[in-house]
Structure formats: C-alpha cells, structure tokens
C-alpha cells in the first residue's frame, strides 16, 4: 500500500510546487498540458474504453469554445455560466454525434463523426462571418474568486483542479456500472447485449459524457486564450487528440495524460531541436511544416511499432527490469 502512495505523493507535491520555480513560458506549457489532458481523458473514455471511434473531437471543442464566447460576447455571461453552458452544448451535440453509433461501426462510424465535425466547423464559421467576427471573438479573462486570471501562474491552480477533478471523475466512472458496461461493449457487443447490457444506452452515455467534458475543455481553452476563432479547430486538432490517446496508450487514463503531455511538448521540442541545427535560419519559415511532418512520422511509428503507446513501452521496460518476458 505504501509503495504506491510514495510516488503519487511526490508527483502531487511536484505538481503543486511547480509555479514556484518554473518560468512563465514553462507554466504556459504546463497549462496547455492540463487543458489537453482534460480533452484527452474525454476522448480516451469514448474511444479507449467504450470503443466508439470518433473523429469529431475538434468540432466538440469548438462547440464549447463558441458557446462560451458567444455568451460572453452577446450576453456578457460570466465564467461560471459559460463553462456549464458549454457543457450543456456538449451534451446535446454528444447525443447527436452518438446517434450514428447505434447503427454504424468501424469506418462508417468514424466517417459519420468526421462529417459532423465538418458541419459544426461550418456553422462556427458561418456565425463568425455573419456577426462580423471574421478574426475571432475576444473574451475577457474570467473572474475567479474575485481575482482576474491573467498570468499563466494564476491559471495553473484552477486548471490543476479541473484536470484533477476530470481524472477522479473518470476513474470513478470507469469503476462504476457505466464503466463496466463500456468495457463490455468495447469488443463484444453481441455478447454484451446477450448479458442484458443496454448497448444503446451505454454507447450514448459514452458519447454524451465524453462530449460534455470535451466542450467544457473547449470553453476553458477559450477563456485561457482570451480568444475564439474557428481556425483553431481544424481536423488536425482532432488528429492530435487521437494521437494523444494512441501515443499515451489506449485504454488507460494515465495514457491520456502522458499522450497529452507528449503531443503538447512535441512542437516546442522540435522548435528547440531545429534551432540547434546549423541550417536553422533556412528552416525557420517551414517550422509549421516540420511539425506536421514530425507529427505524422511519430504517429505512424507508434501505430506500426508500438500500438500499446507509452504505457505499453513502460510495461515492457518494467517487465524487462523485473526479469520477466
């Protein structure tokens, strides 16, 4: 029992103490990781645990962000209203995104979520043009406990709490009946149905819960950046989140967080790496393209060589160290 607690306690202490010695830009990255973790955990619940393929993640993030942005801009709604409202939007969309899963599986399900993503993005773009926000909606920083959140250091505690709550909520959900019904429908739907599990309800629950969390993450993103624009929610963002759960390790919660950290840090690592190269000046212009290419290579590498993700690698290392096969 104690063996487990010590590393966890150290990790928690490390996380809490981070703002003391980290720089502002490091804090920004830490915040991004926390935000990404929330979205990644949501997607992990849906695809990693319940086995429902979804390529519409960016659409849900956008929906949440736009809800918060529209409410802030049109009605002046505060932070405490924006976030739950985003959640409600997410839940509704989750229901819509989830309906195809009752009839479709495999590529057809993936394609239907993809199509819905494009529709959401289109609607967001339409809103921007019609309301004259062609460069995006600006949002004021939120007021939390009477304090305006400006600096990444201010945001950190809030995001840490949010991420922590998401983790705990997800973990409890997985241990409860819902989580077990997801495990049942993951691979063997007919067997699950025969065992009396209400397959449709389990699927829709997965979509709704995942989408609610995702939309709220999107809203948090919007407040963090102070800015909402449809361009920030491309298909590439969806793929990044899918990459997170694959690179991290499908079917594990810690995998979602590891993957989120990996994918968030990757562009920064690449930028740092290319700055070390002698041809760095020439490459500066195509840094975005280099990110793309590197991302593609890494994703392919994990898919082809290590489908178990970072968690899989860790398990194998542990096995090697312990002398097992």
């Amino acid at each position, binding site marked *: 029992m104690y063996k487990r607690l010590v590393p966890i306690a150290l990790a928690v202490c490390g996380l809490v103490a981070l703002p003391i010695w980290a720089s502002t830009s490091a804090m920004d990255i830490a915040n991004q990781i926390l935000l990404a973790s929330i979205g990644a955990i949501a997607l992990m619940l849906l695809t990693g645990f319940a086995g429902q393929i979804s390529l519409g993640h960016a659409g849900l993030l956008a929906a949440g962000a736009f809800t918060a942005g529209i409410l802030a801009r049109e009605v002046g709604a505060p932070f405490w209203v924006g976030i739950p409202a985003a959640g409600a939007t997410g839940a509704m969309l989750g229901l819509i995104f989830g309906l195809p899963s009752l009839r479709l599986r*495999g590529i057809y399900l993936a394609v239907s979520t993809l199509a819905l993503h494009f529709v959401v993005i289109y609607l967001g773009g339409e809103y921007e043009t019609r309301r004259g926000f062609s460069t995006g909606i600006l949002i004021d920083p939120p007021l939390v406990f009477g304090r305006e959140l400006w600096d990444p250091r201010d945001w950190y505690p809030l995001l840490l709490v949010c991420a922590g709550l998401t983790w705990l909520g997800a973990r409890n959900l997985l241990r409860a009946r819902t989580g077990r019904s997801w495990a049942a429908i993951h691979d063997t739907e007919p067997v699950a149905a025969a065992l009396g599990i209400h397959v449709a309800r389990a699927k829709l629950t997965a979509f709704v819960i995942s989408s609610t969390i995702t939309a709220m993450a999107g809203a948090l993103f919007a407040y963090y950046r102070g800015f909402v624009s449809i361009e920030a929610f491309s298909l590439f963002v969806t793929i990044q989140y899918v990459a997170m759960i694959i690179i991290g390790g499908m079917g594990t919660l810690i995998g979602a967080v590891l993957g989120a950290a990996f994918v968030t840090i990757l562009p920064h690592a690449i930028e740092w790496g290319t700055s070390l190269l002698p041809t760095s000046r020439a490459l500066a212009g195509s840094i975005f*393209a280099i990110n*793309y290419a590197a991302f593609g290579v890494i994703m392919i590498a994990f898919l082809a060589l290590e489908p178990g993700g970072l968690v899989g690698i860790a398990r194998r290392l542990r096995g090697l160290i312990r002398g097992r096969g």
Partner: protein
Amino acid sequence: MQLIVNIVVLTSIYALVSCGYVLIYRVSRVLNLAHGELMMVGAYLLLVTAGYVTNPMVAIPLAAILSLTMGALVYLLLMRRMTGESVLAAILTTIALGILLRGLIVIFFSAAHQYPSVPLGLHSSSIQILPGARISTLSLVLVLVTAAVYGSLFAALRLSRWGLRMRAAGQNPLLAAQRGINLHFIYALVWGIAMFTGSVAGMLISLDAGLDQTLVLIGLKAFPAALVGGLDSLLGALVGSLIVAAAEVLLIQYVNPLLADVVPFLILIAMLVLRPWGLFGTREALDRV
C-alpha cells in the same frame, strides 16, 4: 446549359478522384484517407518532372508512372504492416501518412501557389462547345480522361486476369491466398493504380488552376461521392460524383455559394443515416477492416 457543363466537369473531377477510394476499399478493404494528399503529391511530381522535361507529352506520363510506383511503395513499405490491425489503426495510419506528406510537401516546395503549366507551355483557353456553354480545354481533357479511365477500369476488372484476381481478393482474401493468389502483389498494384488515377486528376486540375495545398480539399470532398455510391462500387463512384456535383453546382447557383464546401458532407450524413453502404455498395457487416 452552362450549368450542365459545369456539373459534368465537376462530376468528372470527383469521379476521377473517388475511383481511388473505391479501388483501394474494394480490393484491400482499407479506407485510405490520405488519398487527397497522395493526389497532391502526384501533382507536385509533375512540377518536378516539368522542371526537367518541358515537353508535356513526356513530363505528364513520367509523373504518372512515378505516381504509380509511389502508390505501390506506400503499400509495400507502410500499409502492409497494418494488415490485420484494427479498423481505427488502419484509418489513422492513412491519416498520419497524409499529415506527413503535407508537411514534406511544404518543406520541399513551400506553401506558395505553383503553376506547372508554365514550364510546360500549356495554356488553357475557353471554347464554346454548345450554345450558351463554355468549357476550358483542360476541363474538356479532364472529362475525356475520366471517361477513358473508367472505361479501362471496368474492362480490366471484368475481363483481365489480374482484374478477376483483384475482385476475388476483395471478396475473400483468405480464400484468394489459399488459391495461390499473391495478395501483396494485388494490394501493391491497386494502391499504385489508385494513386495513379488520383495523381492524374491532381495534375489536370493544377494545370488549369494552379497548385497548392487546397488540392487536398478536393480529395476530401470526393470522398462523400465515393461513399454515396457505395465504397466498393465503381459505378457507384460515378453516380455518387454526379449527385454530389449536381447538388453543389445547383446550390451554389440558386441558394448560397458558401455551401460549396459543406454540401458533400451533408449528403454524406444523409446517406449514412439512410443507407450506409451507399447506392450500389455491398451490404456488409459495417465493421470490416
């Protein structure tokens, strides 16, 4: 009248692109979401060959052959490892490949708009083919090429030995292997042909309108056309392309030009709700890899 010409041209574009999706799905049961990017790579290959050979009669076929080879290599080096993996893994591999290719293209060619027609000395002019209807020469070529490609594909699949083997491999890969059919060769061949047809489409489009990353969008929009027709039916791809193209052109003309990019996906959703396997596709278990 002009509308009809526009519909025919757009149908040809979608048809030429979507047959790539159909071929790969029908024969190897993989959904290749990198088709748009592979199409773009083919067009950039033309830019490369045009840099060395200014005669279009040499540059274009050369680029096309390079595309065929590259398509086969994509299978042999990458997709072959993913056979037997889950649906999600296979789709994601193609998506990741697309991302990789996009990055590489910008690194090597920059994101600027390119004009392969310039070094080749090709100019597109507008001809009047019917009263009240004009068409650019390159669009006309494209329509004819699409017809030729489809004709050849139908004939090859029905009549040739390898076409027969491809159809067999698509229906029952295990039995095909048991009867001595070399699946790796078949799959490499079909990936090569798919990239070939996509590249030809990409080249023709870029000769007319220039070349940049937005070519991928055409690839993406052609996918609903393939699905509407049925992912394993060439005839379906043709019909699906017609439906999507007609809807797009008519809606732009009479309703709202901004709908152009989202209409194919609305049709896709409608089809998935009503009849997921498309108009002519084989009704399947909906979850095969």
